[in-house]
């Protein structure tokens, strides 16, 4: 790394997609891939984090570090993605 104090990779741009990552303070990592000209992906990632903390962490049946199968979470996630895609 040529500059001091650099974090890990946050954004990767390729010809056919972009990959944005978001690290939480608890060590969780969120990644989203999207079309190249996508905007506000960091806001999307923060929204996903919010959904995660609401529908996964507060779910009493969910065990930490296990794969997530919480239906509500997935529903809300799909809605978020649909809204984002509709907004363009």
């Amino acid at each position, binding site marked *: 790394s040529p500059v001091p104090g650099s*974090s890990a*990779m946050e*954004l*990767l741009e*390729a*010809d056919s997609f972009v990959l944005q990552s978001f690290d939480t303070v608890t060590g969780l990592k969120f990644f989203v891939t999207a079309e190249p000209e996508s905007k506000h992906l960091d806001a999307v990632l923060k929204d996903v984090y919010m959904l995660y903390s609401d529908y996964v962490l507060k779910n009493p049946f969910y065990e930490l570090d296990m794969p997530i199968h919480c239906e509500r979470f997935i529903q809300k996630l799909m809605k978020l993605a649909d809204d984002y895609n509709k907004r363009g």
Partner: protein
Amino acid sequence: LRPFGASVAFGKRALLATTCMGVALYTLHIFNRRGTCLFYKEWNRPSPSRGDLTQDHKLMFGFLFSLKQLVSKIAPKKGGFYACNTSAYKLNYFETMSGLRFVLCTELAAGDMREVLKYIYANIFVECLVKNPLWKAEDPITCPLFTQHLQNYLESIS
């Protein structure tokens, strides 16, 4: 045997701040297909490389190789990657059909440097080296014409 990743020493010139379109540049690497670092230049690099430069080059090449593999696996369509950001710098990447890789580290505010890298390849690298009968493909670059043109180009578009 040539030392792996022989870097070119420029003395004071390397310390001159070079900006490109008002954007600060940190380092430039040129690798060939095998991973040999043919060329390395740094300007204004805020944190100097720890330890050996050759280790740095190997690290850079290995990083790019893994990144390319990752990108090819998750890409929905064909195509490579051209940039990657961290919180502190932006790495711009350009690979030619012959496997020559150009890597330019700049500050975050840099725009799309693909055209810059393409220009460096097509108009400086090809003109000064490929068309130079004395240059052999696996050798590190020591041609002063190349370095002069490169410096001129990068300063001229600032």
